[in-house]
């Protein structure tokens, strides 16, 4: 590697350079005491066109050290539900019901001043587009310093040292020099690293990553996912990973919640949901995504389009697109909203579907791709 001394090569921690690296697939860790408990959360926005029911009756819990992936199509309520945890919705224009408990503290209904102490300190968020999420007119170091000093009574120089330390930790080469640069001088991957450094600068216990790699190339995506995984192993934080990409879910998640039309339609461990799905929507997604590592003769798309949150159908919101509506007697799919409960015997997650034995139905379908 003669002239290959490009600066990135300095970040030895991230230079497996062909050498084998442990798999990113999580082992089942944590699992004990829940740090985050979301219970029956609904988020609605009154708009001129009517009430947008962006999130309805979502419940889950997440212990420290564990990763929950929230997966769904755009507009399914993934971001809205996690912004509620950060208290980032405008209270005057949002109706939030249900409860969110973070480390034992109730969040719904708290004042903005109270929330400010939690934001960036107890819980941090990493946004999708690192290009637009960093302020273009301030240096990266300035922005990190500000995040640290907001929650710590320290001098500028102490905060600056801390900022450089964090930039180094997330694998940005020459962190000292980089701290004085502006975001536009960074590449996309480095910007996202800087965002992560800023999110982690106060050692938060919960990290919400809202599509953190959607705007990045695969090779950079892999770097960022590895980084989040390493940081979690080191600091034991809980991670909510929001994504629309089931393959990313497969790579990083312990638990998975599938959202559709603002509701959780399936919820379980990654293995339960991705290998033994119990909801027709999850099954449909799995049938329609070609994997990189296996040949697939046919894709089975889900027909139709995602629903409008302004006029969700009564009953199951997936009914207009579901190929199994007729398997449920009395047209119940169109009238009764199914509950999110366990549906089949065996190791399956919870699913919001009236089918009594989804497992058997899917298994009997077109040659299943799963082993």
């Amino acid at each position, binding site marked *: 590697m003669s002239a290959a001394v490009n600066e990135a090569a300095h970040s030895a921690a991230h230079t497996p350079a062909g050498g084998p690296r442990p798999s990113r697939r999580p082992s089942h860790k944590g699992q004990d005491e829940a740090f985050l408990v979301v219970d029956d959360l609904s988020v609605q926005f009154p708009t001129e066109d009517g009430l947008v029911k962006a999130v309805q009756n979502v419940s889950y819990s997440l212990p420290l050290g564990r990763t929950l992936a929230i997966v769904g199509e755009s507009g399914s309520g993934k971001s809205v539900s996690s912004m509620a945890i950060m208290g980032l919705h405008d209270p005057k224009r949002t109706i939030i019901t249900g409860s969110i408990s973070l480390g034992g503290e109730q969040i719904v209904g708290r004042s903005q001043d109270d929330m400010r102490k939690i934001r960036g300190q107890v819980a941090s968020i990493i*946004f999708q587009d690192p290009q637009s999420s960093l302020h273009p007119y301030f240096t990266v170091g300035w922005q990190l310093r500000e995040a640290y000093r907001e929650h710590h009574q320290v001098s500028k120089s102490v905060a600056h040292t801390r900022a450089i330390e964090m930039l180094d930790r997330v694998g940005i080469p020459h962190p000292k020099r980089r701290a004085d640069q502006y975001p536009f001088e960074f590449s996309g991957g480095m910007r996202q690293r800087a965002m992560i450094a*800023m999110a982690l600068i106060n050692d938060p216990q919960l990290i919400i990553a809202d599509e953190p790699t959607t705007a990045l190339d695969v090779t950079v995506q892999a770097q960022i996912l590895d980084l989040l995984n390493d940081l979690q192993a080191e600091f034991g934080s809980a991670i909510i990973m929001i994504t629309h990409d089931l393959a990313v879910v497969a790579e990083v998640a312990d638990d998975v919640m599938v959202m559709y039309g603002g509701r959780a339609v399936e919820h379980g461990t990654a293995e339960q949901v991705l290998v033994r799905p119990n909801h027709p929507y999850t099954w449909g997604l799995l049938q329609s995504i070609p994997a990189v590592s296996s040949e697939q003769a046919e894709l089975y798309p889900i027909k139709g389009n995602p629903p409008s949150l302004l006029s969700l159908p009564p009953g199951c919101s997936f009914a207009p697109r579901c190929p199994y509506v007729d398997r449920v007697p009395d047209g119940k799919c169109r009238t009764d909203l199914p509950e999110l409960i366990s549906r089949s015997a065996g190791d399956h997650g919870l699913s919001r579907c009236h089918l009594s034995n989804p497992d058997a139905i899917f298994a009997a379908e077109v040659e299943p791709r799963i082993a």
Partner: protein
Amino acid sequence: MLVYILRRLASAISVVLVTIVISFGLFFVAPSDPAGMLCGVKCTPARVAEIEKSLGLDKPTSEQFALYMKGLVVGRTYESGGVTRECPAPCLGFSFKNDQPVLGTLIARLPVNLSLVFGAALIFLITGVTVGSLAAKRPGTTGDRALVGTTLLMSSVPYYIIAILVFLYLVIQVPILPRPAYVSPFQNPGAWIAGMITPWLVLGIYSSTSYARYSRGSMIESLSEDYVRTARAKGLSDRRVTFVHALRAAITPVMTIFGLDVAGLLVSSIFTEKIFGLQGLGITALQSLTNYDLPLIMGTVIVGAVVLVIMNFIVDVLYSVLDPRVRLV
């Protein structure tokens, strides 16, 4: 940076040069009869020729232009009626009308415009941006609607009507505001303020509504930016989010308009000068045109071009300071 400044300087000089050539062409070559006008009613052709000679208008245009340029760069001497007058560089010549050196006249009037702009800009920038930012935070509320309504109302009433009304009612009829007059701030700062406060308030408040509107639009945009959301997610206070993060980005486009407005006001604020009886550059330019006082016309054009070019340069530098992405390599 130095290279950038040099490049800007080169382009600035060429802009000024082009302006000079074009206006010289327009005013000196175009058919006109300044000598006839100066000569008055009882005029003989001989007298006209004499005046033309004394003004140098009898020479070929190219020679006149060469002389003019020479005057600008190294200065020149004028001879008329046996008297020789030195006109050091940058020489803009002598007024046809009153024989005063043009440069001196213009320099004497510039402080009026400078003072006017200084006070008014302070008022309209600060109130405009503050009001606009506050309105942007709650678009659609009563306060915001009131602001938008007022600016609409203001922009539908011509400025000179407001200025005349204020002058008639608040200065003459019910003398709440002092009568405008220019006194140099270095002679008597108190009198300077007292003399300028009326035009400052009128021009400042009138223009602040449009600044409030620009800033409001610019702020609404920047408040919805992802990086503002990031700032809130860091736990920053609402005030810090608005006035550090959002305003920092919103102010940049406003500064561009500001620079151009200031440049415009510096060279001409005819209504303000005329209505409030201040002898500024705008009035001078107007008078020079009605008198066909060629040297004065050329002088105001050149000074105007120079001021605009300088302001543009300042805006560019300011822009690069505000927005690090516009790098001055």
